[in-house]
Structure formats: structure tokens, C-alpha cells
């Protein structure tokens, strides 16, 4: 490649680029630039999603669609722009992901059709191609929703038509349409109420704008791998996500709410904060700005002092990131402390339906946990895997569910280890048995002892009926709370509180000493506390313990002993 050609495909100033006609290879560089820029800002587009639908990450979908377009031309030396854009359109079509990806592929399809058989792109052709892109995209929907990527394409088309009367230069037209796209994106909430309610602009429109802006930035020689310093709506700030990206040496998270004295210079603000820390986010809403940053240990006051020079600080919070990380790890049950077992000792394996229940079993001394329960019975293989590598050949399994007992017994048959299955039919039974476990001693005696206490505990379970049925003499309607006592349905109720109190009454909880409530993943701590209060009122003689069980589907698993 001679030096002149080298220059042609590397970023330069707008002035330098104008010397060259836009052929296939120049356009190839522009596509690469738009993909890079879109990917750099992918997360900023993703946070704009309003609809909680699967596959809904617009930024990701558009990046994948553009990636497919790029893969199609990556190795191509095609100089004919008509042929090259046809490849782009083909790649985008094949790789189109999600709604926005499909629309994007249609824009490219129309764009490519207008350029068919042309060697290079001039101003008039560019205007025509943008127009064709818009038309093709609009044809794909019966009732176009305005305030979306379609609207941005329409506004871009209109601006291109205005621009052509001032200039024939494709680069200058690009500059004009980038500005128009930007304004169009900003106006999307005016057209689509759902965006306004969520306080965001349209994600697909933003993605399309970034594609065009990436091309312009490339021509101007601006960096493509540094995210734009952006101000997000307050509601869209995702600070929990920022925890994923903690870098070594960043010990504190500082969040400052403030009101600037003058109009905030956002790029300058980001530049200054980058001297202090990482994971910078800026949000705006209700007349205040919120800044988020991660900083090293001796720098926790620096962002606050800096912001004081810009305006009035309303509120500042400093949190120790490592403490936050530990809390998250605890919540996810990552710190499960299983009991190490030595050769010759008796190891226990428990099946646990939720992370909280797993922790209780761990605290009682089990050496392995198998996840599973009523609606997700673990396989024989999973149970086998849990104990096969333990360094002892004496194993006791607590299936903790009547449907898992068989799988556990099958696992016992498949190993050379000496395995005893304690037929615990519920979590409370498993826990009662676990209380009698001793790691040393005669395995048969220990198992017998564990077996003997299974029926000393009463098990209560509360769940929601998935269909209307009459069972065990109780008439249950779909959606009602059903109370089960030792596996049998004893009543159906319309709310969780009466289901719980009714169950305890039927199980004669007043004759027992201790009630333990394991609450499931579907109930809030507040609901649980309110119900716990009414239990204490109704059963003042009994001790009540409340534990976060984390099990799915079952609001409560209750142990009465």
C-alpha cells in the first residue's frame, strides 16, 4: 500500500477526508468506526430500556447487528460502494437481533438498494440512500410508533434533504444529520409518553445516532474507545452494577447530591473526577445532580471538596466498598461454610431448597449441599457428585423432600462408599436429624439416632395453589394460599397471615416449644415481620425464630418442635 492510500483509510480531519471520494473502502472504515463507537456506549444505551422484556437490551442487540454487518465486510477489499453496502445490509439482516436490530437492518437494506451499482457516494446519492433507508424501514410496520428509531431516521432524512441545497459534500451532510439525529433523540420523550414517564430517551434512536456519530468522530479523528461523558436520569443510575467493576485500590464509594452554581460543564466534570477515581456516573433529576465515584482510601473526601467548588452539596455519603462486597457475597450465599470432613468420619450431605436453608444446614455441620426441593428435584448424579469426592467413605444423605428420597437411595447404590439415606421428608425433619449427627462414632448408631428424631418435629409449609382442586377434603381455589401440615393440605386461605396462623393452630403449635419460620424468596421481610408479630400474640408461650430460607415457591417452611 502506498502512503497516499494509507492516509485514505486512517482517521483524519474533515478537511483531509474531503479530498477523497467515498468508495467502498472508505465506507468500510466508517462502518468499523460506527461499530466501535456503538460498542463503547453500549451500556449507556442498555440503561435506556423501558420494557422489561427478554432480549430487551437494545444496546447489545444493535451492537450484535452491526457486528454481523462488519463481519461480512471485514476482509473485503471491495472498492465499489454499491457492492460493499449490499454486503453490509446482508450481514445486518442475517445478524439482526431484537426489534431495534431488525429496524436497523431495514435501514441498511434501503440504503444499499439506492447505491446499487454506484462506484462512489456523492451528496445527492447519499440523500437518496438515506431516504430509501427511511422508506424501507417504515414499510415494515403497520402502525409506526413515533418517538423511536423510525422517527430519528425520518428526521435524518428530512435534514439531509435540507442540507443538499447548501452542500454537495457527503462529509458535511454527515455532520448535519448527526446534529439532527441528536436533536431528534432528545425529542423522543415528547412523542412517546412511556419514555417521558421513565425519564429516558428512546434506546433504539440513541443507538442509531451513535452509529452516525461514530462515523463523524472517525472523520474528525476523535477517539472512539472512550465513552461519552453523559448525564443520565436519576432513575436510570445503576449503582449496584458499578460494584461489579471494583478495581484494586478503590476502597470507598462516594455519592454526592449537589446543585451547581452555574450550568455544569459535563466533559470537564468527568475529566476532573477521573483524576480522583473510577466508575464515575452522573445523574440528574428533580433539580439536583447526583455524582457516583469509587476512590482509594485516602481520597474519600476529594470528590466532595471538588464538588463544593462547583456548587452546593445537599447530601454526601461515603461507603466502604469492601464491606458492601461482603454483604452482597453473604446475600448470595457465597460464604457458605461447609464442614471439612476427615477420612473415617461420617460426612453428611443435605438437599436444600434455598440459600438461607443451605446456610442453616452448613452451620449444623454438613459437608456438602445439593440445591433442590419440591419443584426442582436434583438428579441422582447431582447427589452423587456432591459426596463422591469427600475424603471419607461414610456418608449420610438428608433428602429433605419425599420426592428426593428415591434419587438419594439410587445414588447410594451407585457408589462404593457406605451411604445411609435418612428418609427426611422435609427441611425441618432434616434439621432435627442433623442435630443428632456426630462426625465420629459408629455410623449405624448415628444413623439410627438421626432416624429416631424425624417424627419429633412437625412440618408446616405454605404455598400458593396453582390450580383449583379439592384435596384432603379441602376445597382449594387457584391463587389461594394453602397450608400443609406434614405434607397434607389442612386449609386454604386468601391471605398469608391467616394461612400461617391457621396452620399453626391445626398443628397444635401451643403444645410445642419452638416455632421456626423459614421465609421464602417471594416474601418481603416486612410481610414476614408483621406475620411474626401476630404469631407471637397468638402463641405467647412459644419461642419464635425467623430465618431467611430463600426457597422458591414456598412462602414459609415452618418447623414446630
Amino acid at each position, binding site marked *: 500500500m502506498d502512503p497516499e492510500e494509507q492516509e485514505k483509510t486512517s482517521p483524519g480531519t474533515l478537511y483531509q477526508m474531503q479530498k477523497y471520494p467515498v468508495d467502498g473502502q472508505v465506507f468500510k472504515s466508517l462502518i468499523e468506526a460506527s461499530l466501535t463507537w456503538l460498542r463503547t456506549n453500549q451500556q449507556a444505551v442498555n440503561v435506556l430500556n423501558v420494557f422489561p422484556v427478554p432480549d430487551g437490551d437494545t444496546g447489545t442487540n444493535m451492537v450484535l447487528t452491526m457486528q454481523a454487518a462488519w463481519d461480512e465486510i471485514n476482509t473485503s477489499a471491495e472498492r465499489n460502494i454499491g457492492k460493499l453496502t449490499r454486503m453490509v445490509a446482508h450481514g445486518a439482516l442475517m445478524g439482526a437481533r431484537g426489534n431495534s*436490530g*431488525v429496524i436497523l437492518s431495514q435501514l441498511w437494506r434501503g440504503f444499499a438498494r439506492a447505491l446499487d451499482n454506484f462506484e462512489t457516494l456523492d451528496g445527492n446519492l447519499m440523500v437518496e440512500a438515506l431516504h430509501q433507508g427511511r422508506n424501507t424501514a417504515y414499510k415494515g410496520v*403497520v*402502525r409506526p410508533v413515533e418517538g423511536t428509531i423510525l422517527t430519528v431516521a425520518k428526521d435524518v432524512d428530512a435534514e439531509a434533504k435540507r442540507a443538499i441545497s447548501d452542500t454537495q459534500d457527503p462529509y458535511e451532510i454527515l455532520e448535519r444529520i448527526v446534529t439532527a439525529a441528536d436533536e431528534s433523540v432528545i425529542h423522543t420523550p415528547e412523542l412517546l409518553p412511556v419514555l417521558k414517564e421513565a425519564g429516558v430517551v428512546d434506546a433504539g434512536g440513541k443507538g442509531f445516532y451513535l452509529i452516525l456519530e461514530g462515523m463523524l468522530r472517525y472523520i474528525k479523528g476523535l477517539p472512539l474507545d472512550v465513552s461519552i461523558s453523559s448525564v443520565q436520569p436519576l432513575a436510570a443510575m445503576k449503582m449496584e452494577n458499578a460494584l461489579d467493576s471494583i478495581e484494586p485500590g478503590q476502597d470507598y464509594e462516594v455519592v454526592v447530591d449537589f446543585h451547581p452554581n452555574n450550568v455544569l460543564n459535563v466533559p470537564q466534570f468527568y475529566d476532573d473526577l477521573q483524576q480522583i477515581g473510577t466508575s464515575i456516573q452522573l445523574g440528574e433529576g428533580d433539580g439536583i445532580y447526583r455524582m457516583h465515584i469509587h476512590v482509594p482510601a485516602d481520597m474519600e473526601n476529594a470528590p466532595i471538596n471538588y464538588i463544593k467548588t462547583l456548587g452546593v452539596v445537599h447530601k454526601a455519603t461515603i461507603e466502604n466498598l469492601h464491606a458492601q462486597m461482603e454483604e452482597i457475597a453473604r446475600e448470595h450465599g457465597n460464604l457458605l461454610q461447609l464442614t471439612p470432613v476427615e477420612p473415617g468420619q461420617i460426612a453428611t450431605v443435605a438437599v436444600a431448597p434455598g440459600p438461607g436453608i443451605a446456610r442453616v444446614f452448613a452451620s449444623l455441620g454438613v459437608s456438602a449441599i445439593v440445591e433442590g426441593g419440591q419443584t426442582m428435584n436434583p438428579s441422582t448424579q447431582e447427589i452423587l457428585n456432591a459426596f463422591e469426592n469427600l475424603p471419607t467413605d461414610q456418608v449420610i444423605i438428608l433428602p429433605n423432600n419425599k420426592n428426593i428420597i428415591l434419587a438419594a437411595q439410587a445414588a447410594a447404590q451407585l457408589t462404593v462408599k457406605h451411604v445411609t439415606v435418612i428418609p427426611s421428608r422435609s427441611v425441618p425433619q432434616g434439621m432435627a436429624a442433623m442435630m443428632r449427627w456426630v462426625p465420629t462414632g459408629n455410623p449405624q448408631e448415628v444413623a439410627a439416632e438421626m432416624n429416631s428424631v424425624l417424627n419429633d418435629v412437625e412440618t408446616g409449609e405454605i404455598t400458593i395453589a396453582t390450580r383449583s382442586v379439592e384435596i384432603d377434603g379441602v376445597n382449594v381455589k387457584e391463587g389461594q394460599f394453602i397450608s400443609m401440615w406434614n405434607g397434607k393440605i389442612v386449609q386454604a386461605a386468601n391471605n398469608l397471615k391467616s394461612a400461617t396462623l391457621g396452620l399453626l393452630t391445626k398443628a397444635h403449635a401451643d403444645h410445642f416449644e419452638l416455632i421456626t419460620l423459614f421465609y421464602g424468596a417471594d416474601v418481603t421481610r416486612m410481610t414476614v415481620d408483621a406475620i411474626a408479630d401476630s404469631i407471637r400474640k397468638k402463641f405467647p408461650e412459644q419461642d419464635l425464630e425467623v430465618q431467611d430460607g430463600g426457597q422458591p415457591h414456598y412462602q414459609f417452611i415452618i418447623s414446630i418442635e
Partner: protein
Amino acid sequence: MSTEDSQLGRVTISPRAIATIAYQATRQSYGVVGLTSKNLMEGITQVIVKDPTHGIEVKYDGQKISIDLYVIIEYGTRIKSVASSVSNTVKFNVEKALGMPVERVNVHVRGLRVSDMD
């Protein structure tokens, strides 16, 4: 008929009402340019249909709602992506309006409309 007991009495929602919601969502869904009757023998494909149950079949078995869409898709779009978008949109809108889960949305592509040949 989907039913739900409220405090005062019974609320019933007919499959036709659900079909209307699904129809509105389908019309706004990118790439879907028409609905057609389930049975092709019924006759002419209508590109825009006025009857909201035409091309949309709602089933309710007492527990789950399932919806079948018989659609015409714009030629030149990626059919798989369009179909998955329309099923997501219909599921989301019906669930939002009814507050009841939709178990399945099956999309049957019954034809393509060609606006432009490449």
C-alpha cells in the same frame, strides 16, 4: 374465559378481549405487516384485518393463557427476530393489561409481503 374473584364479584375476561389487546400489540410490532386466518382454506389473506380475533387465537385452560398468532411478515426482514419480537411484545402487553401470566405465544408465519425486491 379467564376469571378472577374480586371482593364484590366475579370478573371474567373473554378470549376475544384478550385477542384485541394482542391485536393492538401485533399491529405495533415491527416487521409484522398483517394477520391471516388460521385456516388457509378460509380464503383470502387480509393484510389489515378489522376483526381483532381474525388471525389471533386465545386459549385459556383454567390455568394458563396461550396465544397463537397467524402473521404475515415483511419480506427482507430476519423472520426469526421479528417473530421473537412480536411474541415478546404481545406477552408483555397482555400481561400488563390483564395482570395474569401468559404461558405461551406461538407465532405462525403464514406468508411474506414483498414491498421491494432487492
